[in-house]
């Protein structure tokens, strides 16, 4: 590719607390279709990392295969990336995270990559509450192989080929909640307002933070009859609540009314303030969370926002009780018991 991008495109944005500019979070030029929802999500990820003042090289971006899975190439050039094989990103992240628990793992996947071939790995990474941000760019179809319906396509939804999808859709958020993910949210590529803080909250959570982002495929599944089209989602989505994400160290500038606002404090002392319509609904209640999703589905609505948070949940390292030091930093002297111990073992075997 022979494209070059001017290296300084956001002169108006200052350096963040960590001293990085927005451009420091950008990646290569996207080769996705013009208008593809995935590109907007990439923009939101870049924005969230910038706003959170993350060090780009302490982030690891990983993916499977698909248009969505190409995304890691289009963001965070200063971070290591791994575009693995179809549906197997979760296991790669599991290994990477086990090797070094100190980095932030950003897994990017598609609905095909996760809900079909990757279902097993998705379920088990969630079940282990792996400390990562797992983003599904959900367009209800297989973009890269030219538009077949995926397992998240809604029954009756009609894409570009004109044939309706026949099977029921899988709600990945519902499954993630059920299997014990500590943070579950849903958003829309067209709603940066909601998506950026949602991503920031997810990045601040320790444990599995799963985010399903509806992301229209303009080439194959953006027909008015598709329930994953820009038009449809705009018309049919409803947020659980508006919310503010206040990172640790940032001052709280607003006073929130009690009752309708629920404050959830994460492990790193960031706080999510949720301004809810129904004060009865607790975002930390799994049963309510699942039920709310189902209820909206019955009404033909897509529920977005923070769907569920358990700030107390334990991640895989905690569960396995592994060393607090990155395992990849251990030296031979610590790892190898040496010849004296071996002598003992030989002795035991005689």
């Amino acid at each position: 590719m022979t494209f070059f991008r001017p290296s300084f495109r956001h002169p108006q944005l200052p350096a963040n607390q960590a001293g990085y500019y927005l451009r420091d979070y950008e990646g290569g030029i996207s080769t996705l279709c013009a208008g593809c929802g995935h590109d907007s999500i990439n923009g939101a990820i870049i924005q969230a990392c910038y706003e959170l003042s993350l060090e780009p090289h302490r982030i690891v971006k990983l993916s499977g295969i698909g248009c969505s899975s190409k995304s890691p190439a289009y963001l965070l050039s200063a971070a290591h990336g791994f575009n693995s094989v179809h549906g197997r990103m979760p296991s790669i992240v599991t290994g990477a995270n086990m090797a070094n628990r100190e980095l932030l793992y950003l897994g990017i996947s598609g609905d095909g990559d996760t809900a079909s071939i990757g279902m097993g790995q998705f379920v088990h990474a969630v079940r282990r509450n792996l400390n990562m941000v797992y983003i599904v760019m959900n367009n209800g179809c297989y973009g890269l192989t030219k538009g077949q319906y995926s397992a998240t396509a809604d029954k009756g939804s009609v894409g570009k080929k004109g044939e309706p999808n026949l099977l029921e859709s899988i709600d990945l958020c519902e499954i993630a909640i059920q299997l014990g993910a500590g943070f579950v949210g849903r958003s829309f590529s067209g709603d940066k307002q909601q998506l950026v803080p949602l991503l920031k909250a997810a990045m601040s959570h320790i444990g599995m933070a799963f985010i399903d982002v509806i992301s229209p495929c303009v080439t194959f599944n953006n027909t008015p009859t598709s329930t994953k089209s820009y038009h449809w989602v705009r018309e049919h989505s409803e947020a659980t609540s508006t919310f503010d994400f206040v990172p640790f160290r940032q001052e709280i500038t607003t006073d929130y009314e009690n009752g309708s606002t629920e404050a959830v404090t994460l492990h790193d002392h960031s706080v999510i303030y949720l301004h809810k319509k129904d004060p009865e609904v607790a975002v930390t209640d799994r049963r309510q969370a699942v039920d709310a999703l189902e209820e909206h589905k019955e009404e033909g609505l897509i529920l977005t926002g923070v769907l569920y948070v358990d700030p107390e949940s334990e991640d895989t390292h905690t569960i396995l009780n592994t060393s607090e030091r990155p395992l990849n930093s251990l030296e031979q002297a610590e790892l190898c018991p040496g010849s004296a111990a071996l002598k003992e073992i030989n002795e035991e075997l005689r």
Partner: protein
Amino acid sequence: MKPIQSCNDLVIRFANVNGSGSASANNLFARAVFRLGLPVSPKNIFPSNIQGLPTWYEVRISEQGYLGRRGGVDMVVAMNGQTMHRDYAELQPGGYFVYDSSRQLPEEYERQDLVLIGLPLTNLCNEAFDNPRMRGLLKNIIYVGGLAYLLDMELEVLTAAVELQYRKKSQLIPPNLKALELGYDHARRHHQGRCLLTTRRRDDLIGDQILMDGNAATALGAIYGGATVVGWYPITPSTSVIEHFGRYAERFRREEGGGRLMAAIVQAEDELAALGIVIGAAWNGARAFTATSGPGISLMSEFLGLAYFAEIPVVLVNVQRAGPSTGMPTRTQQGDILACGYASHGDTKHLLLFPSTPAECFTMTARAFDLAERLQAPVIVMSDLDLGMNDQLSPPLNWDDDGRYDRGKVLDHDQLEALEEQWGRYRDVDGDGVGYRTFPGTHPSKGAYFTRGTSHDEYSKYSEESDTYLQNMERLVQKWETAKGLLPLPEERPAEEKAAIGLVCYGTTIFSAQEAVETLAREGLAIDVLVIKAFPFQQAVVDFIQGHEEVLVVEQNRDSQLRTLLLVECGLAPEQLTPVTSYDGLPIAARALVEQLRTLLASGQSTTTTVTQGGAA
């Protein structure tokens, strides 16, 4: 028919029902033989089931130190009604049939060429012990006591073994000792002088050798090699590699004060995920491995291709069992040579190591991490069920404290900082086909790259350019050449006289092969042996084969898979390599192999030969 007479050279088969506690009694017996200073080789022949089916334990004692399966049984301890008649029928003429004489033998047991030795095990046991659960277990100890007498073993060795075995449950020691004595006494009183199979303590035979199963040694090799991340999924016969790793990690990897573990052992949801975990961890700078068996290998082939092409140093232990498909999960074979050597679609080849002993399992596994990191490629340790799950007499494990892990080409923060020219992950700056790696998080602005299974240039950028693709693929061939200089060399075992015939073998086949060669040497037929330790093959392998008029390749699979690799990779003519195979699921037996080689070499015909082994199971 004369009863078989021999000292320190015999095969006893224990025929039991699995889940009946016989394993520990039989084990006790084998360990006692070992403590008598005798080379011993026990083989467990068990069903793919948990309880109630026939299981055999075959113990060979060999003063000459032959550790392969011999073939033929001199004495059977027939404790399983389901197989009793067959066990009886399969005894060698002159053999000894030890049975529970609490019930009379039925009429069809009418061979005249056997020595019947009845021990009223049930009666003895019921008279002596009350606890019904214990009775079943102690009955096994009673026959061990009987054997001690019959084979002229020192009873103290057995009593010591019992004391060691139950040192943590000491209330079990007295009844076990009592059971031992019951058996010993009964035999002494009723069968004096009837058994001409004997053992005699030797202090000069086994030296400092140990008795250990290959899987434990493999696990320890991984500990010593510095593995910190394990992804795995249970499958016989590889499961115990991980179980042992877990136990050794408990012992050696707990942080001070019994705290957290300096290793992450993740039981994955399947083998694909297991290898994915290893790939992710290895990519991120930890030493990582997994262990599996045939079906797991098949499931891992997509990921193996990724590791080959993205050049990720994974270590994979394959404890082979009898395929194809689920095959015979509790039988041994060397059947995955091709599946591993050429795993995955596209042009791929993988580095293989072939251990033969626990000592080699230990060393090769530890070394596999160095090789994988030096060569940035998967290394597959090709063990098998026979080696992995049976106790083996082995040289002691050995570790050089002065050696340093070879982490291969990795740029750390300061090296990155000092870099002047542009770094490229897949640039072959040293001409060995191997680039420099970096780990995530190392440096704020240098060394980040994008790993992928798609075609890429030297900077790991995606590319569909033909030339870029070719260059990369050819560099991988270059790396393959580099590997030959790093992998363990084959071991030559020349005949005493000059030999025109050579024999190539590897892994667990070498014991019976060596025995066969020595047997034939005594008959005046000189054969040089080459033990292959690794794939790709080095020049020494080619030289050995070219240096002989005829070369036999002995292996434990149907399709002569290592021979296939030799033909293809060394550019050999098929006449140069005569396949000799044994693949019925039992460890290859020396006697049958001798027969086979004798016929083969007499006839001068170099066609495929399959060793037909006798014997149960």
